[in-house]
């Protein structure tokens, strides 16, 4: 089947999509946007977090056909050409990036959290990010990154 959707502000089209494909597969393998990650493809790890019509979802749990004519923003769409989004910069500066495989999903999740709750306390941050697994950092630096992003935004 053919899918048409808007990704990071651009109208995109994918052909010969098998009906069982996820939005994640279409983004990664058909649209050249592998930034959204495939750590579990079971909706448990949050590494594939993207905005779908403004709401953060696990792209692995969205059937490709469900994204028809909808608006998707991925981690690749957060920075402008000149500079990183403050959340991305905060992850770098706080040392919240090690292997980095969880980072795109966490960046999207934090971006979304701070849009909704501009000054969250730590308990709120922990609840909001409980669906994003990280195996390297032990999360301390991720909390630091959120605090830094709150200051800078």
């Amino acid at each position, binding site marked *: 089947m053919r899918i048409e959707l808007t990704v990071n502000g651009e109208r995109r089209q994918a052909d010969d999509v098998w009906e069982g494909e996820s939005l994640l597969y279409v983004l990664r393998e058909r649209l050249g946007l592998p*930034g959204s990650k495939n750590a579990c493809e079971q909706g448990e790890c949050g590494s594939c977090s993207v905005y779908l019509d403004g709401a953060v979802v696990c792209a692995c749990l969205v059937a490709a056909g469900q994204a028809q004519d909808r608006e998707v923003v991925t981690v*690749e769409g957060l920075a402008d050409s000149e500079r990183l989004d403050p959340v991305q*910069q905060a992850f770098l500066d706080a040392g919240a990036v*090690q292997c980095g495989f969880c980072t795109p999903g966490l960046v999207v999740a934090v971006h979304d959290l701070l849009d909704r709750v501009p000054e969250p306390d730590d308990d709120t941050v922990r609840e909001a990010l409980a669906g994003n697994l990280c195996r390297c*950092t032990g*999360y301390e*630096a991720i909390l630091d990154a959120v605090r830094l992003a709150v200051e800078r935004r």
Partner: protein
Amino acid sequence: MVGGGVGADADRPDGVLKVSGEFAYGSDLWADEMLWGVTLRSPHPSARIVSIDIGPALAVPGVYAVLTADDVPGEKRYGLEVDDQPVLATGVVRYQGEAVALVAAEHPETARRAAARIVVDYEVLAPVTDARAALEPGAPVLHPEPTPVVERSREDADLRPRGNLVRHLKIRKGDPEPTAAVVVEGDYEVGMQDQAFLGPESGLAVPGEDGGIDLFVATQWLHVDQQQICRALALPADKVRLTLAGVGGAFGGREDLSMHVHACLLALHTGKPVKMSYNREESFFGHVHRHPATMHYAHGFTRDGDLVFVRAQIWLDGGAYLSSSAAVVGNAGLMGIGPYVVPNVRMDCYGSYTNNPPCGAMRGFGAVQAAFAYESQMDRAAEALGMDPVDLRCRNAMEEGSVAPTGQVLDSPAPVVELLRRLQAMPMPAAPPTDGHDLRRLPGGVANSTHGEGVRRGVGYAVAYKNIGFSEGFDDYSTARVRLEAVAGQPVVMVHTAAAEVGQGLVTVQQQIARTELGVDRVVVAPADTAVGSGGSSSASRQTYVTGGAVREACRLVREQVLARAGADRWEDVDLAAVLGDEPVEATTEWRHRPTEAVDPETGQGFAHVQYAFAAHRAVVDVDVELGLVKVVELACSQDVGKAINPKAVVGQIVGGTAQGMGLALMEEVVVTDGIIRNPSFTDYLIPTILDMPPMQVDVLELPDPHAPYGLRGVGEPPTISSGPAVLAAVRAATGQFLTRVPVRPEHIVLSGDVRSEGRAEAERDPSTGTT
């Protein structure tokens, strides 16, 4: 003085790409005309393969190749230390998940569906599933045929399995029949932990016009992969070229081959690039795990609390293939007494072949399992002696100059007492909430399982140590190539090694060392590949030490050449751009740490380890003793790193390593029954989330090791070893139960018969109001 050198919080060179989603991990790779490879795996832990019919799979439109063991052109078996694991199953399967056949197709779903149509006729056999029973006479032998040793530098280290016995490590020190006034004994058990790196096993194999192959793969050691791939493909090293793809975490789980040979076979067979990327379920079958352990320990003390003897037996389940089990057995035994001075030691550590999932390297490498036992024993002894557990540890602690159970003298700082005392001096977290209103801070969280009733706080301490680098005579080295050149009138350094950046920050460390040694700001780290000599494994907390040492050495050789060319004595006097001109200066060197030696097979005595690293933890937990739910309130760590090359990255290693140790103590276990993995998913295999991991206090000591570059010590593993035992001790303190198995589950706390009445009575509260 150039910024961003040794000791600075330098930024990661790969950081911008990682936060913007543009860093190319193994599973992100793509090529024109690319096919997808998938693996058909055995559903049985033990079976004879009667026949395989690939016909129905080949008939599926879009399928390009279906391969079995008959299609492996070279050695049919591979391995890290002995060749015992089939590339594809030959005649029998020895664990659930063993690779049997491969399919390449245009679409991954096509390949999966085709693989499901391969007809394998199995004659199912009874699996060997108990690591101790496997060693009994009459147990079915998994590998009756001899397995060739391939790791030549460790031939002396007693690697060759005998029957199902992978290795028996013995330590015999002091009086063989010691007696002591106070003896404590205990049995302990550690479950099978998974590395659970987030980036799946993945890579892209591209066939070359010369009949060779280029493999881009996420791994920990390119050259040992290359050697194994060459043997399986019957190709020389110049025809098997590896480049490191982006690695989404490793933690030991990428020491062994996974999809490497399989993707190469499919690519060579089809003449097309082939990508393989495991999903999470397959990943649980696609790499080795941490060995589950059963352990029996007896500690003897004087009435004053001085250790007289330790007798210990450790059984590690190696699963179906050797992987690095022999070395893990060595480590578990040699590290198995803990950082204490013990005059009389009798240690027997056994590794077994079974039909369980193969086990091998995971962060801490044998030392993790033993630490749960010996630290539990120290707590048990403190209670028997009526002493404070930290005081008892300090009384028996190793220090510089102490003699390890191997007879090795500790010839650099061993600050066990200092680490523990510094932890004790750290402020304690606030008391548990009594109003019961903020559910998020209570065990069970927003599940609303308690408002504070039945919640008890506990505090526990643990200390551990770990050998750094490869031990027991392994020829442990790394190669570095450093080039200094002028680009547009500015000096630029290029560092090229094959050492794997797996997330730990090795690329940053290489830049920092080059900046410090050459005084040049612009340092480019070339992609790791097999065009340069081996960098050794990103394992054993060794890369900053060994590859860092190699980079430093190569930089110093470059310096000498530049000084000679400039005719100068002092580096500060050299106008680099002018001296370099159009002619770069380059040096390549292999660098080794001081050699270790195999231990005596009967006594375990010998200079087995190049360096030890020490860490200690304090854990504070709140436990809902009625439901068995644990909330870790705070973890504190004190660790000696010798020299923090990148302090921010060091703290990142300590916090991340601590989380993995806590995970093993409380939640992480690959549940295996009758050889079958029951929970191969992130739904059922739980790793700590940001809700599980508490705030941490981290205290970094820098006591230089005079034998190591910059005085540094390996950092990555020690925090994973001591955090779990500290958490376990805290849960015991909270519950009054002497829990002996990790991970501790709610039912262990609630249903254990080992409940002290006073601890339980204290937990009783008025159920009608939820308040005391």
